[in-house]
């Protein structure tokens, strides 16, 4: 994990003191609410329906147990005892008081955390693969590159007042667990076709919101040394040419779309030619330095089997189900990756109580080398658990209600906070996700359905990523009634696709039945249990589904 230097610490202290000054100037009336808004947003502070919301950055989804304990402390001391992990791998607090925020930032700074650039029209927290460094299908660990991007983008003086927010995701594996195609810039680490050289496939102009679009590959292979100069060139073109006349057309996806992919590529390449040899050109010494923070831990040399584990698999069906659903193979023999499901019938998706956070921190120390990762599907990961510890860990997770065996299955629902919290929402999303969970909360059914994703957004801003779900639900307000549109066929993975609306919207008390019908059509028509929902949908097309839903 990256270790802060004295200068990193210094910067956080200066930032907190600067923010204290901004709050003081606001309270004295020297700063208008509009101008303060720009400053507080750059510190992750939103004004929501009932209160302020503070979004804390978790750089590329990586947390130490000590940091997790601080997050628990903040939830307990300044909030109502819980936090919400978001689709951008960050954590949000829904009830902080404005006057407490500088103190919260102080507490965060002590454990090398902050809320810098978690909102506002600037480069946001870089997201990545939650399995970085441990995945079996990894080409190269993306975290060192994410850290270089974090440093480059933090208080970048030229790109702090962009036309709109800007999100970058980096993936280093064959499977895309970072949804690179739906980010303003997506970087996929790839090996050159002609040599062993590592570089990036560069996607630009993906995004969800009102106008969902998949990113375009504007460069098939960018040598890794050129990563930051190329990013700088893209951002510069965007800063100068991105639309500022209409907030809904200000994202880079619209610029790429309106300029045309080819012309946009030419503009970026022309700018890049002029800066590619500059100070941001990355040298071997830079990679060596930053990779030093992400070396493998000293793994024990272990066999990839364990008698107690095998026995419990045979004797305890619940354990076997959990292993089947929530455990992933690790690159190191004798180790496993464990998903902690934040999707139960008892809490909104992504919510974790302070007590759970403390307990997770303890489990990380006890079983997983003290590290925790957050995922863009709003779950948590313990990345380095020994096979022999799985039975004990399972017992502890069950007691914490964090062992629902549903990872990447129908009740592993992404949901935005919706109208229960959010000032932008037009419909509730949490109650819908809970109703779906209640309806399908049966292991055999979940297991039979296999790999399928349901995502729910409470307005067209699409924070719940409904466009890229196999089954997406969008809540809108139609003449005073909350209704829900159903979108089918989306994917956020390496086969990324934007789903299509299947037909007229459903009312709140109809939407769960509608989802149930969609699942039935799949179950009745799949070629065999191996054919996933998405594969079947792509083969069948929308007609059968439409007919069942609307007659």
């Amino acid at each position: 994990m990256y270790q802060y230097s004295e200068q990193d610490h210094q910067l956080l202290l200066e930032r907190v003191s600067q923010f204290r000054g901004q709050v003081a100037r606001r309270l004295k009336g020297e700063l208008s609410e509009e101008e303060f808004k720009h400053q507080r947003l750059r510190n992750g502070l939103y004004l929501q329906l009932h209160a302020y919301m503070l979004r804390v950055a978790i750089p590329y989804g990586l947390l130490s147990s000590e940091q997790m304990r601080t997050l628990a402390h903040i939830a307990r001391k300044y909030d109502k005892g819980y936090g919400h992990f978001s689709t951008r791998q960050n954590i949000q607090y829904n009830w902080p008081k404005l006057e407490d925020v500088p103190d919260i930032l102080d507490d965060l700074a002590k454990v090398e955390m902050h809320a810098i650039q978690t909102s506002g029209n600037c480069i946001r927290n870089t997201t990545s693969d939650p399995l970085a460094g441990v995945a079996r299908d990894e080409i190269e660990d993306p975290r060192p590159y994410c850290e270089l991007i974090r440093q480059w983008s933090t208080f970048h003086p030229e790109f702090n007042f962009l036309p709109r927010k800007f999100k970058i995701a980096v993936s280093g594996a064959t499977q895309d667990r970072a949804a690179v195609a739906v980010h303003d810039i997506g970087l996929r680490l790839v090996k050159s076709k002609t040599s062993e050289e590592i570089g990036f496939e560069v996607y630009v102009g993906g995004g969800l919101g009102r106008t969902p679009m998949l990113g375009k590959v504007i460069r098939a292979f960018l040598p890794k040394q050129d990563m930051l100069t190329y990013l700088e060139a893209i951002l510069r073109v965007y800063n100068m040419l991105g639309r500022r006349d209409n907030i809904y057309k200000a994202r880079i996806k619209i610029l790429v779309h309106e300029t045309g992919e080819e012309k946009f590529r030419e503009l970026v390449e022309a700018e890049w030619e002029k800066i590619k040899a500059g100070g941001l050109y990355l040298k071997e010494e830079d990679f060596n330095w930053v990779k030093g923070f992400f070396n493998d831990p000293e793994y024990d040399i272990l066999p990839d089997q364990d008698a107690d584990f095998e026995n419990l698999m045979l004797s305890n069906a619940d354990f076997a189900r959990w292993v089947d659903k929530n455990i992933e193979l690790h690159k190191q023999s004798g180790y496993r990756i464990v998903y902690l499901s934040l999707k139960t019938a008892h809490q909104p998706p992504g919510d974790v109580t302070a007590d759970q956070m403390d307990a997770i921190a303890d489990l990380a120390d006890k079983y997983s080398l003290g590290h925790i990762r957050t995922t863009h599907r709003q779950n948590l990961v313990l990345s380095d658990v020994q096979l022999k510890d799985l039975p004990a860990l399972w017992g502890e997770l069950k007691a914490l209600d964090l062992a629902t065996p549903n990872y990447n299955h129908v009740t592993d629902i992404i949901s935005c906070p919706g109208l229960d919290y959010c000032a932008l929402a037009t419909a509730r999303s949490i109650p819908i996700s809970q109703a779906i969970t209640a309806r399908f909360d049966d292991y055999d059914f979940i297991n039979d359905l296999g790999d399928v994703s349901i995502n729910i957004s409470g307005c067209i801003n699409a924070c719940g990523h409904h466009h890229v779900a196999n089954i997406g639900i969008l809540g809108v307000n139609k003449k005073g009634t909350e209704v829900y549109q159903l979108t089918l066929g989306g994917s956020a993975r390496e086969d990324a696709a934007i789903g299509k609306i299947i037909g007229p919207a459903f009312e709140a008390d109809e939407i769960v039945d509608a989802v149930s019908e969609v699942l039935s059509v799949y179950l009745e028509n799949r070629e065999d249990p191996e054919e996933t929902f998405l594969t079947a949908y792509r083969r069948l097309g929308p007609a059968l589904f439409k007919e069942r839903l609307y007659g």
Partner: protein
Amino acid sequence: MDNYIKDRKVDSNEWMPFTGLEDGDSLPTGDIYVPLEEWLNARETLLTRNGRLGVALRNTDDPAIIKDDLERLDLVVLEFPKMADGRAFTQARLLRERYGFKGEIRATGDVLYDQLFYMQRCGMNGFELRDDQNASNSLKAFDEMTVTYQPASDEELPLWRRNK
């Protein structure tokens, strides 16, 4: 009070904006700056004066248009029509870093305390603060942050290589 900062000091603004150039006889004396169109239309006439000369760019102009003129200019004026419109940050860096402009790069418009740090990093060194801002109180804004990660007009190297 001019509410003007130059090179991190409260200063008096000697420059006059000048538009509506119709004939060369009525050219004012002293230091003036003109919109880009005037400069492109009447460059030779303007250069016959004795006073110093500046050009004001709109934030949609490509600074490359004046790159060959920069040796004859002492001031380039950039605009921030509103605080959230950050195009001039790029213009300033291009003028300083790519075209090597040595004169004053001045920020005008919504020039507020909290942007001064970023503006100076991008090469701006003259600041016409908005009327409601206090120039002497704003001087500390330049030093609120002392750690900078990335190269800009004030630093050639990223922090991680400066440390070596």
